[in-house]
């Protein structure tokens, strides 16, 4: 392994080299956003020095499909989070405080869901949503995402709750607070790091998913930005510049969120790392 290279100047050099190679596709995308169409075709890798243009981005931003797509993505992602965060936190609270066999079984039952590939349940989900008259609605997609990512959130919250002392629950109870009050006013505020992790990770997954909105919402009723991109690819005469512009716009929100909450992203993923 590269542990051998862990000394001296060799390591940083190697690191930079590998990183540069790895970043090439990113560089490619970024660089070509700011070049006019012909320059892209002829010199894909050249940086936009003389022909720098923001036309691609502005054009992309003005596309109605982009504007509505971003709006739809936002609605769905925020909606799913608003629904899922409180629900999953409450489930995790129950599981971690109850300490009964039922609670443990419930946790296992939920972990099951982590292993589920979405294709397995996508079709039946549409059937259920149809019965609930929620097909082709925002709510349908929101419920779908909230349900699907609930197990992950519960897992992260339950792990975190282990470090929240039970004495706080007790003090709250003695102070006269009902169970809901104890949870919402004392415990939940203390779970902020876990909430940050859950939010950044699930927002990422929800925003980037193009299949669920495609099937459940249906192109005719609304399109998320990623679904929009999917539908646009395949169109002939691709204006690469504009496409890259669209993709930049599509990626910026999650990228920003990620960079902001990077620490929590990592801790949320590794919460699984230590507990398995």
């Amino acid at each position, binding site marked *: 392994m590269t542990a051998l290279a862990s000394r001296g100047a060799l390591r940083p050099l190697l690191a930079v080299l590998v990183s540069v190679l790895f970043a090439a596709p990113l560089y490619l995308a970024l660089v070509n956003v700011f070049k006019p169409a012909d320059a892209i075709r002829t010199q894909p890798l050249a940086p936009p020095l003389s022909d720098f243009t923001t036309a691609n981005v502005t054009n992309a931003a003005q596309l109605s499909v982009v504007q509505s797509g971003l709006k739809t993505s936002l609605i769905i992602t925020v909606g799913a989070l608003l629904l899922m965060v409180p629900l999953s936190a409450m489930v995790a609270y129950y599981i971690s405080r109850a300490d009964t066999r039922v609670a443990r079984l419930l946790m296992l039952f939920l972990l099951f869901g982590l292993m589920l590939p979405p294709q397995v349940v996508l079709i039946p989900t549409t059937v259920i949503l149809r019965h609930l008259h929620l097909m082709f609605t925002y709510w349908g997609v929101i419920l779908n995402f909230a349900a699907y990512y609930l197990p992950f959130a519960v897992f992260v919250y339950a792990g975190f709750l282990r470090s929240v*002392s039970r*004495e706080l629950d*007790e*003090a709250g*109870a*003695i*102070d*006269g*607070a009902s169970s809901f009050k104890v949870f919402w006013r004392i415990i939940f*505020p203390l779970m902020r790091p876990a909430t940050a992790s859950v939010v950044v990770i699930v927002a990422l997954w929800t925003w980037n998913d193009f299949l669920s909105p495609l099937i459940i919402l249906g192109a005719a009723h609304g399109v998320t930005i990623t679904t929009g991109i999917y539908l646009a690819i395949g169109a002939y005469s691709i204006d690469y510049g504009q496409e890259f512009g669209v993709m930049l716009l599509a990626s910026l929100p999650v990228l920003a969120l990620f960079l902001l909450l990077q620490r929590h992203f990592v801790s949320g993923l590794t919460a699984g790392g230590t507990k398995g």
Partner: protein
Amino acid sequence: MARVELSGVTKDFSDGVRAVDELSLEIEDGEFVVLVGPSGCGKTTALRMIAGLESVTDGVISIDGRVVNDVPSAKRDVAMVFQNYALYPHMTVFENMAFGLQQRRMPKREIEAHVVEIARLLELEPYLKRKPRALSGGQRQRVAMGRAIVRHPSVFLMDEPLSNLDAKLRVQMRAEIRALQRELGVTTVYVTHDQVEAMTMGDRVAVLRGGILQQIAPPDEVYRHPANVFVAGFIGSPAMNLLEATSSAGSLNVAGLSLDVPQYAHLPGDRHYAVGIRPESITLVPEGIAARVIYTEDLGAEVIVHFLLDAPALDTAELSEVEEVEDDAVLTRLGVGGDGARVVARLPASTSVSVDERVEIALDRDKLHVFDRESGVAVERRGESALVA
């Protein structure tokens, strides 16, 4: 303002451990009762049952005449100070103290008035806007107290509130807590493992061991008339010395000496007893019980001397929970002294003895305690005037 009554209260945990065994006691309105005992004796469990944090397996707990076994904590009108304070980390001192009042739907203005008043009392006013992590241990402890006091509950419950403080602060807080409680007149149940705290703070002291109440009485009663060997050894520092003894023809045979003790002349003969004598009741005499000095501690104001007697040691297996006796055991294991009964005495500062010196000691006959060897229960002293203790 309330009486607290425990009646045959028993607590079994799901793994079979019986933490509290048929505990019955009554705490009067406004009384400060201390539950004391070694760790694992059930005192904290008993407290938590009064608080409603543990369920009651058997027996009845009532507060102010109302049976509260199934009443949730929120409705019992009790306030608790936790050993680790359990302050809400994300709330300011003010919010911590106000929380309980907010649950009662008290108007904001009133809450503010109450909190400020108590904060002033506890000298916490400058810290009202701070969060717990910005406070020292002593300050946090006071916030925990403030949170409990501000609710004006019927009962204060305190679970070793001083054990996380340094020694000097602890002494100071002891006095403050007691003074506060007297001023507020709230019934208080206080749990500690420190018998000094128990003796200095409590109106009455309840000694527990293995979930069973050993004795409940005012401090001086517990000190002068311990109900059994455990209480005798647990209360008082250094611990009471215990020796094997037999009785015959109206006198006690202790450590090779036959003592004529009128108060115990009534004891049936040829029985085995354990005799207790506190360290301060031992003196050096020209002729008495032979003893060899094995260790001395010069404390300035007095000298603590450890002796070895030419008499068999009392089997201290049963008293293993008493810390001091453990220290002796440690000394034995380290090879200090040898086989034989060990006795600790508090001697005046002028005493000068050296290790391995052979001396004679006398036991103050008026201060002897006699316990049945089998059961450990104290034997009644006869012919006692109010002044003899």
